[in-house]
Structures are given as structure tokens and as C-alpha cells.
């Protein structure tokens, strides 16, 4: 219903609409539900449809938890999307399942992609062919609640030691010792597992994975990183896993002073009216070493799109990975443009919110996931074993490393 009105207002004029609908190609675009992403895409679709009256794009969304299921199920049912968004870590699964078709070299030349996008785009390249293009890239930073930090009379931390210190000073507890407001959110299933894997492990002098993609964090560095994290709850009592159910919910409600989260959260946090918040780079270690985790969702073309649908899908993909689309995405979702020229503008680098994320991109790493959900679960279980079952951290770390390595081995077979 609403869709039809949007179209009507765009095309403006009944005869014109009849004309266009007679020749229209309709393509389906799929992504998961995330309010600001959906809004941004609505905006991009209306821009695109205005410029291409012969193409209509229908946006279909699913809850994140069901998204992969729905994509693969639709593939089995033969009614898949024409253009779809996918996490770079899902590519192997989707490619093997025949969900995606490689991008046509003639339409999207490899050399051009590689010179214009940030280098992490190569994570969606297989056997010389690209399977998608990102609109935006995401990196992590530390969000802080200005009101709570001011109340405690502390400045945003720049090192890990300061982070612990600030968190301790901003944590509030009730008479029974229960946390009523966290210093730092602890949500390992959220972004913290990335923070641990690609940032903390490296800052403690380790490498999460070796050159062959095998697990290499079961070392002293990994142990120190794990201890640093679990100590936040057990030794320093600055946060509680499960507090307010999700870290972002706690921060949003003004019940957490700091949270590690990504660019994609900017849109949601922009809706906060009760307090001001700011962003700083993820804290460095004592030697000044910093790291970050970058990732992205790419848009690819579904294997079911052929002929005129494929041509329409290519046009749409080209538009949603254009500089113009990236600006819309940055404004609405807050994710950083995947093209260098669109990202590294003077305005962005001077922006107090974007600058920490852009700086993070310079020293960011991506994790080559074989099974993102499964690998995340092994990390979540690792922390749970220590926090909930008091398992020896070294044993828990070894167990996690073995479980994750088994997944990597299984995927290589």
C-alpha cells in the first residue's frame, strides 16, 4: 500500500504511471532488519526509481537471526532475491550454495574496484571474481555517556588502564552491591568478541589467526586478553554480562557510561535525547599499540537474476555502491563510505564522531570467518565458562581454540 503511494508521488501522473508500470521490471532487494538501514535503503530505492522509472525495487527484510535461513531457504524454493545484502563472512556459504553470481567484469571492472574501495573489499573476492560490493564499512570505537563521565569528573579514556579506571569511577551500585548503572557494557555476543579477538589479543602481543587462517590465540597473549575482559566483571565489577539484556540497550537507556560498538549504531544512538554522548578511538595499550576490527556487508546479485532482471540488478547495485549512495548511508545509518574518496573527506575527518572510526579503519583488521555465528558462539561460550562456571581461563581458552579450529578445518575440507 505504502509502496504504491511512494511510487505514485514519484511518478506523478496517472498516465505516466500506467506507462511505466506496463514496462516495469520489478526486482527484490533483501537485507536484515535494522531500522536505520531499512530507512536508508528506502531512500536509495526512491532515488533510484526516480532515475529509472522502468525499474521498481521491492525491499524485503527479515530479522537478523533468521536472515541467512531465509536466504538459503529461498534459494531452495527458487524464489530468491535479485540483489541481496550479505556479511563478508557468509560469502563462502552463500557462494557454495549457489546463492550469488559473480559480478560481471565488464560492468564492474576489478581494477576499478580495487583502486577506488578500501582494501578490505578483497574479502569478497574468490578466484579473481568479486561477488559483491559494499556500500559502507564499519569499524569499532568507544562510545561514552558525557553526562555520566562529567558526574564522575573523568575524561574519556585513551588507554586500557584508563578505561578500567574510568569504568570503575562511573559504575553505580545499590546497597546490595548490584550494578544499577554500568561503567562499561559487557556484551560478548554483541561487538565485544570482535574487540577481544582482533584488538585485545593483538594489544597483548598476540595474533588471533596465523597466516594460514588457523587459530593462534591460545597463547599467553590470548590468556591476558581474556583475563582483561573477564576481570572487568569479576575483579573490577564495572559491568555484568546480561545487564539490561544487551549492552546497547543499557547505553541507550543511560544506564552505562561506556560501550564498545560500531558505526552502524550511530543512527540508533542519535535518537537518544536524554543525554549527550561522544566517541573516542578504542583505547591503546600501555605501549600505544592500537587495533580495530573492520567489517562490512556487501551487496551481491542473486543467482536467480537473469536477463532484464540481471541488468536491472546490476544497475541497482552500481547505484547503491556509488559515492552518492554512500553519502546517504553515512547520513542515515552513520556507516563509513566504502570508497576512499567518499570516506576521507575533510568534513568527515574533522567530524568528532566520524573521525575516531576513520582513524580506526587505518589500523583495522578483518576476521576471515568460515561460520560467523558458530565462531562467535565459541567465543561467547569461552567467556561464559569463565564467568559462569569459574573454569580456569587457560582451559577455557584452549577449549575455544580447539572448537574454532575444528570449524575452520571442517570448512576447508
Amino acid at each position, binding site marked *: 500500500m505504502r509502496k504504491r503511494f511512494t511510487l505514485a508521488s514519484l511518478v506523478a501522473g496517472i498516465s505516466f504511471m500506467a506507462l511505466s508500470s506496463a514496462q516495469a521490471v520489478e526486482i527484490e532487494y533483501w537485507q536484515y532488519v535494522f531500522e536505520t538501514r531499512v530507512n536508508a535503503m528506502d531512500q536509495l530505492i526512491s532515488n533510484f526509481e526516480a532515475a529509472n522509472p522502468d525499474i521498481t525495487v521491492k525491499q*524485503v527484510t*527479515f*530479522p537478523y*537471526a533468521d536472515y541467512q535461513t531465509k536466504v538459503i*531457504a*529461498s534459494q531452495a524454493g527458487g524464489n530468491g532475491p535479485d540483489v541481496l545484502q550479505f556479511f563478508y563472512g557468509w560469502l563462502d556459504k552463500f557462494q557454495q550454495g549457489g546463492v550469488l553470481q559473480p559480478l560481471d567484469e565488464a560492468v564492474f571492472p576489478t581494477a576499478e574496484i580495487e583502486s577506488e574501495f578500501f582494501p578490505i573489499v578483497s574479502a569478497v573476492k574468490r578466484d579473481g571474481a568479486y561477488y559483491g560490493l559494499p556500500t559502507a564499512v564499519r569499524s569499532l570505537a568507544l562510545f561514552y555517556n558525557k553526562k555520566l563521565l562529567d558526574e564522575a569528573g573523568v575524561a574519556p579514556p585513551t588507554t586500557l588502564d584508563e578505561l578500567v579506571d574510568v569504568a570503575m569511577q562511573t559504575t553505580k551500585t545499590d546497597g546490595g552491591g548490584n550494578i544499577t548503572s554500568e561503567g562499561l557494557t559487557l556484551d560478548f555476543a554483541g561487538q565485544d568478541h570482535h574487540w577481544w579477538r582482533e584488538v585485545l589479543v593483538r594489544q597483548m602481543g598476540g595474533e588471533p589467526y596465523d597466516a594460514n587462517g588457523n587459530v593462534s590465540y591460545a597463547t599467553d597473549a590470548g590468556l591476558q586478553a581474556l583475563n582483561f575482559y573477564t576481570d572487568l566483571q569479576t575483579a573490577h565489577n564495572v559491568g555484568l554480562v546480561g545487564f*539490561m539484556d544487551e549492552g*546497547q*540497550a543499557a547505553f541507550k537507556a543511560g544506564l552505562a557510561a561506556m560501550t564498545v560498538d560500531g558505526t552502524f549504531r550511530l543512527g540508533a544512538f542519535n535518537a537518544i535525547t536524554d543525554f549527550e554522548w561522544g566517541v573516542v578511538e578504542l583505547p591503546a595499550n600501555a605501549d600505544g599499540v592500537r587495533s580495530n576490527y573492520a567489517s562490512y556487508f556487501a551487496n551481491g546479485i542473486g543467482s536467480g537474476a537473469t536477463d532484464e532482471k540481471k541488468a536491472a540488478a546490476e544497475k541497482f547495485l552500481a547505484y547503491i555502491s556509488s559515492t552518492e549512495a554512500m553519502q546517504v548511508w553515512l547520513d542515515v545509518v552513520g556507516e563509513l563510505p566504502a570508497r576512499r574518496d567518499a570516506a576521507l573527506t575533510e568534513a568527515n575527518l574533522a567530524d568528532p564522531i566520524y573521525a575516531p572510526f576513520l582513524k580506526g579503519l587505518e589500523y583495522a583488521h578483518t576476521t576471515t570467518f568460515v561460520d560467523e555465528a558458530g565462531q562467535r558462539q565459541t567465543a561467547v561460550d569461552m567467556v561464559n565458562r569463565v564467568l559462569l562456571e569459574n573454569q580456569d581461563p587457560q582451559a577455557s581458552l584452549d577449549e575455544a581454540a580447539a572448537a574454532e579450529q575444528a570449524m575452520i578445518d571442517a570448512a576447508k575440507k
Partner: protein
Amino acid sequence: MAEMTANGYELAANRKPIRPGLILTWTVLLVGGLLMITPLLYMFSTSLKSAGQVYDLRLIPLAPSFDNYVKVLSDGRFMRWFLNSALVATTVTLSNVFFDSLVGYTLAKFEFRGRYFIFLAILSTLMIPTEMLVIPWYLMSSQLGWLDSYWGIMFPGMMTAFGTFLMKQFFETVPDDFLEAARIDGLNEFEIWWKVAMPLVMPAISALAIFTFLGNWTAFFWPLIVTTSKELYTLPVGLSSFAVEQSIQWELIMTGAALATIPTLLVFLVLQRFIVRGVMLAGLKG
């Protein structure tokens, strides 16, 4: 309270009837009953609170408002899911009332070779859990294009062994003379079932209808699997996805949960006697 207990002791000592004991029983039952509906009360109470008040554990909201309902209902999703659930549950219920009665009647009132075998075969499906069938159903649905359609949600439940068994039990109590009389009046077998036998087992039909409707209204597992587009979600599946999307805004989640609960509660308040009797009947005979 203390006075009542003292009084009760005295009366018991006098070997009078156990009335004070009854008062105690009644009070305990009332407290237990109120505990039972506490989740419902808090659900409704929170749905009338603003985001800031959620953390306030008061049962009666300070400034109750229907803002959350307006917010949740404004985009029409809930209405759609509500209608989907109503459509699915009604269709499946009608189908069960028709087919389960027809089969139950046939097995109760007709003599033919193979009757016992058919009865046992149908009854044996009670032992097969739905979970075992979902994978083949899913495969079947994807091949036949039933995924993500109303028919896809409904087809597994169009007939049930439970309903057939229940109806058979009841049709067996219908005297043969009634049916024979109708036969002499020249009604055909279908008419005899529909016009004569069915009205005689109305209590059983209502019990079957209540159970089938409620079961399908609250069904979660199969609709979760078979639907992919939001427009086809049933209320429970819609609510679940809605709750995840709200990224833990409890007042909105409670409003959604309340919206899913209100219809069955209203129906119950109107038809309490009827429903309780139906459940008793189904439980005893089933």
C-alpha cells in the same frame, strides 16, 4: 487474620463444620490465583507505561497511556498478523470440525471390513511428533511452492487424530435408532450425519473447535519455519520477530505481547462456562 485463625481453632475444637478451614483454603487459593495472573497483570501494566517508567516496578502505572498501543499498531503489521492468525486458525478449525467428525462418525457407526485397521492407523499418528515431520513437510512445501503461503501454514493441521478419536467416542454414544429413523425418512448417509448426528454431539464439536482454534492461534514452531515474508507471519511469529527488532524496549514488547493475549482472554471472559466445559469434555474422553 490472627483473629480468624484463633476463631477457627476454637470452632475446630468444638467439632463444628470445617468452615474456618474453608476460609483459609479460599484465601490461599485466591493468593495463588493472583500469583498466576501476575505475569499478565504486569504485562498489561507495562504496556501502559512510558519508556522511562518501565524500571519502576509499580503495578499501577503513574500516568497510564495508550501511546504504546498507538505506536505498535500504527504501521499495520500487528493487524495483519492478527488477521493471518484468525484466518489460519478459523480455516483449520472448520476443516477439523468437518473431517474429524466425518471420520469419527464413519468409524463409530459404519460396519465395513478394514474399519479397525483405519482406526488404528489414524490413532497411531498420535505417536508421531510434529518435529519429525517438519523436515519432510518443508521439503514437500518447497517442491510444491507452498512455502510462505497460507496453505503452507495450514495444511499439516487440516485433520488430527486427536479430533477424530474424540468425535468417534462421542458418536458412539448416539443411539442407532435415531439414525435408523432418519434412514427410513429417506435421508442419505451424508444428510444423516450432517443433519441428525452432528447436532447430537454439539458439546463435543465445541470442545474440538476450542482446542483446535487455541492450538492454531498459539502455534509457533511450524509457522516460524514455513513463513518467510512478514506479511504472512502469524501473531506469535510476528511478535517474536517484533520483540527482537525492538532491541529490548520492554514497554513495546509488553504491548505486543498484550495484543497477542487480549483476543483469547476476551473470548474466554465471554464464553467461560462453555470453554471450561469443552476442555473438561475433551480431557475426559480424549
